[in-house]
């Protein structure tokens, strides 16, 4: 089992979810996060003062998948989260020692 984590743009959540559904991955946890990064540097203006805002609202998705599916899942997320413009998605994979789902219990 592996945990695939990806940080994507909020508007890509819907297409990524749809793409994952198509390859049979229906389970997914999404969290609203703030992404800090070098490419983020817009300013907010209030009352004549500019606030440098270093982050963008992003969505983090997590899915625990079996080892054989990892490559396909990563590729699917990457593709579905890519827009015409600068892509800010970021994906990493980590190990899971054990998993159990609600279904498993009596």
């Amino acid at each position, binding site marked *: 089992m592996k945990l695939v984590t990806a940080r994507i743009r909020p508007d890509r959540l819907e297409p990524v979810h749809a793409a994952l559904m198509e390859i049979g991955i229906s389970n997914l946890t999404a969290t609203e996060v703030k992404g800090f990064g070098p490419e983020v540097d817009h300013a907010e203006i209030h009352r004549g003062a500019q606030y440098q805002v270093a982050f963008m*609202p992003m969505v983090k998705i997590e899915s625990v998948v079996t080892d054989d599916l990892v490559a396909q899942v990563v590729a699917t997320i990457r593709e579905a989260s890519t827009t015409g413009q600068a892509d800010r998605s970021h994906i990493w994979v980590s190990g899971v020692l054990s998993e159990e789902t609600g279904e498993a219990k009596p």
Partner: protein
Amino acid sequence: MNSGDTAWILVATALVFFMTLPGLAMFYAGLVRSNSVLSVVMHCVAVAALASLLWLFVGYSLAFDDSVGGMIGGVGKAFFSGITTDRLSGSIPEIVFAIFQMTFVIITPALIVGAYVERIKFSGVVILSSAWVLLVYAPIAHWVWGGGWLGDLGVMDFAGGIVVHTSAGVAALVTAAFLGRRSGFPDQLQPPHNPGLTAMGAGMLWVGWFGFNGGSQLAADGGAGMAIAVTHIAAASAALVWSAIEWIKFGKPSLVGAVTGVIAGLATVTPTSGFVGPVGGLILGAAAGAVCFFAVDVVKKKLKIDDSLDVFAVHGVGGILGTLLVAVLAIHALDGGGVLVESGTVGSQLGVQAIGVVAAVAWSAGFTFLILKVTAVLTGGLRVDEEAELVGLDLTAHGERGYDL
């Protein structure tokens, strides 16, 4: 001068302005995505400010100065010239009439905001709304209320079924069609980000509408009271009918549905409120709830136009419906009072009402389209780019974020 009438119209002025800010702004803000919530409010604020100044500059004069051939007023009242504090209009000072009418010219282009949310350039809003006030609103207001040809013809429009709701509704439809659909329309849209905010805005609109319709009586009397009664009953009845349809159709009545019903009822009763009694309001409300409910579907699914917050289906269809039903409902009197249609003349009155509707639809559609064409050139395309649409207008157009909780 009657100080009681004046007191009432001063208050009605506050109530109708309250409808736009914060009423309509909240109503619309709750319906969009959370990353464009501020832009909608900003549109309402900007439109209110622009329309107010244009009304002062020349709008009021174009609408209410002596008629030039029944088509448009003169410029003799530009900058409220000659409207001193002691000049009367009926039983109230003319300045009070002028500012009461100003609140109508504020809300009408603000209604159109609902058609173009989440994808229009702010510069486009500024140009479009300004031109629209002078080229569409002022003439139609003149025709109906300012001594123009529709008023002469005998068209009945108590508080703006034609002038406000039909003209704004049609403009919304044309604008939405011109601008194109939001990405994701119609299947992948996000639901309203804050329906509670929408309901609170609807509550404010409901309260403010007491001034809109009751104030249109221009006196503090039984006619104003009856107009408010009729207005309120129509809103209540439309809300219940809309909810009942949803309950039957989907198994669940929604809050957004119920308050959309409220607004549909209010828009529909507007042209009629001074001419019928409470039972007339009941009928109008029920009609509004049912007809506007299905109109929403038709625009979205048949016409496939992304009139995002259903301005045409609610205000346009409601305003037209009410304007036509006046001819029928006013004869019954329905325990109401005021100017009634003689029963022998229903047919001809219906014809007059239809002429009023057709004229407003044609004029508003034509000039809105023309204005859009010119605006698109001036702004280098009315729409923001795809990236900005996805990120949301709050950050990209105004440099702000709606919520940092």
